[in-house]
């Protein structure tokens, strides 16, 4: 088990290198090779930034050498500084990270807590009224353009009904509130972004949970459990759920990249002061150091998430935990 964890953890490093290399190459795809053309696209780039940029990327050297040097600096978490305002990239990201993590983790919890029960109930009561309704919900949820949903949410709950705030996380007035009201205000600001973020994954995961539970229900050991005279609740909780959870955990891990991808859209729509919006703005401004920084950190977070799901999997599955494969 320890070896398993260590190996999984070590795997993160080559993945990170591979992904950052792809991004690095993509940046060099931008038309023109020299820094001046890149600046030409954005008049906001200041003189000192240009100097920084040249230094940061050693643009006179071959791409591979440039990449090597960049990785060397990355080890000390030095992503250079922004071309727009000269701030250190790392500082910019760390100031935005908590907002993103808050939104993502809450969404993840909500997805898990709602989708799995929906899937299990639909599977156990297959073809019931509940199952049919949920199937329709799932198919629609899966096909809905999420940004469109976000717009509709803003239209109804923001403009028409005026129930919920539609943008930002903590406006200026929160400084004057006590902690209880501040939390209340934060929750109000979270509702719409969380709903928009969670909606698509919710549909996907409940569908997936349903089919994994059905698959497990067809296994011979479930027949054994029934032949033993166990009650149906015992069969579901002790035999079906734990086995179905194995594949659900895997898919949760694999859905993280989609969730992070969503953050670039939703943080922009809801003006959420997180890393996703930072990344989007950086791309639009050709702010390469920030783009690279956001890309690497986003990937790192995804990899950590997948690592955690691997650990959870190993924890549930004795074939990995105990070993001794026959």
């Amino acid at each position: 088990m320890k070896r398993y964890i260590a190996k999984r953890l070590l795997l993160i490093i080559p993945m990170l290198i591979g992904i950052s290399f792809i991004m690095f190459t993509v940046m060099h795809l931008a038309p023109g090779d020299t820094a001046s053309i890149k600046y030409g696209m954005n008049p906001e780039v200041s003189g000192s930034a240009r100097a920084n940029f040249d230094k940061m990327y050693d643009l006179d050297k071959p791409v591979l050498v440039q990449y090597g040097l960049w990785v060397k600096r990355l080890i000390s978490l030095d992503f250079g500084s922004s071309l727009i305002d000269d701030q250190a990239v790392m500082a910019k990201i760390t100031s935005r990270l908590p907002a993103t993590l808050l939104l993502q983790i809450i969404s993840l919890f909500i997805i898990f807590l709602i989708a799995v029960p929906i899937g299990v109930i639909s599977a156990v009561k297959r073809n019931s009224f509940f199952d049919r309704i949920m199937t329709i919900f799932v198919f629609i949820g899966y096909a809905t353009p999420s940004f469109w949903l976000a717009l509709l949410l803003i239209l109804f709950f923001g403009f028409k009904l005026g129930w919920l705030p539609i943008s930002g996380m903590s406006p200026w007035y929160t400084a004057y509130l006590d902690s209880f009201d501040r939390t209340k205000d934060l929750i109000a600001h979270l509702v719409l972004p969380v709903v928009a973020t969670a909606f698509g994954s919710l549909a996907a995961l409940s569908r997936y949970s349903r089919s994994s539970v059905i698959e497990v229900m067809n296994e011979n050991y479930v027949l054994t459990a029934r032949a033993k005279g166990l009650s149906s609740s015992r069969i579901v909780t002790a035999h079906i759920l734990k086995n179905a959870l194995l594949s659900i955990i895997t898919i949760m891990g694999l859905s993280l990249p989609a969730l992070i991808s969503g953050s670039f859209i939703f943080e922009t729509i809801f003006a959420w002061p997180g890393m996703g919006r930072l990344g989007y703005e950086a791309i639009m401004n050709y702010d390469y150091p920030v783009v690279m920084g956001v890309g690497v950190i986003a990937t790192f977070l995804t990899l950590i998430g997948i690592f955690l799901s691997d650990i959870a999997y190993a924890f549930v599955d004795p074939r990995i935990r105990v070993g001794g494969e026959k």
Partner: protein
Amino acid sequence: MNAIIEVTDIKKYFAKKSFFYGAEKMPVKAVDGVSFTIDKGKTFGLVGESGSGKSTIAKLVTGILVPDSGKMSIEGDIDIVFQDPFSSLNPRMTIRDIVGESLFVKGVNREEIEDKVVKILHRVKMKNMECLDKYPHQFSGGERQRIAIARALVTQPDIVVLDEPVSSLDVSIQAGILNLLKDLQEELALTYLFISHDLRVVEFMSDVVGVMKSGKIVEIASRQEIYSNPQNEYTRHLLSSIPKI
């Protein structure tokens, strides 16, 4: 003696893959120094329990796998019939294409292929000849095994490896296939390597029998010797385990 197959001290180890990357230190010794010879026109029966390495021998002799060490000399063409007729026939090919493929890849022309395919299907006693344009799932297990035998024999090989050819069939079907194999051997002067876990079937089919355990042949002798006067402890144990009628 005119040995058509001569296998000397072949070995095949598989690196045991652990759950994720990296091989474990202890390889599985699937075949661990096996030697035997088969005379022309005879049947060599290879019997053993699961994991004994008998199927690996089939793959080594037919060239699907390459031995790590040892010598094999095989005089003549060789073909194979597998255990499971549900998996040994390509579900998306017609019977004509399945049986005729080995002729096709050798560049035999269309009429000749058709002719040979029809002849061999007659020979394995496929009852209706409308089967040519049908697909494997339209046949029963026994019929599929006949088709598999036809495929193996269409190029007129000298040697056929039969890897558990009746193990997944019902006993009443099994009898027909075993009889057919005996008939074909006589008509076409075939040499068989007959692999099975069932000592009774091996006794019925073989001239010489080898008993395998954990990658090694523990006893090898004529059929009469093995069944009436077994020398090895394990052979005796196996024989005593068979329920008697």
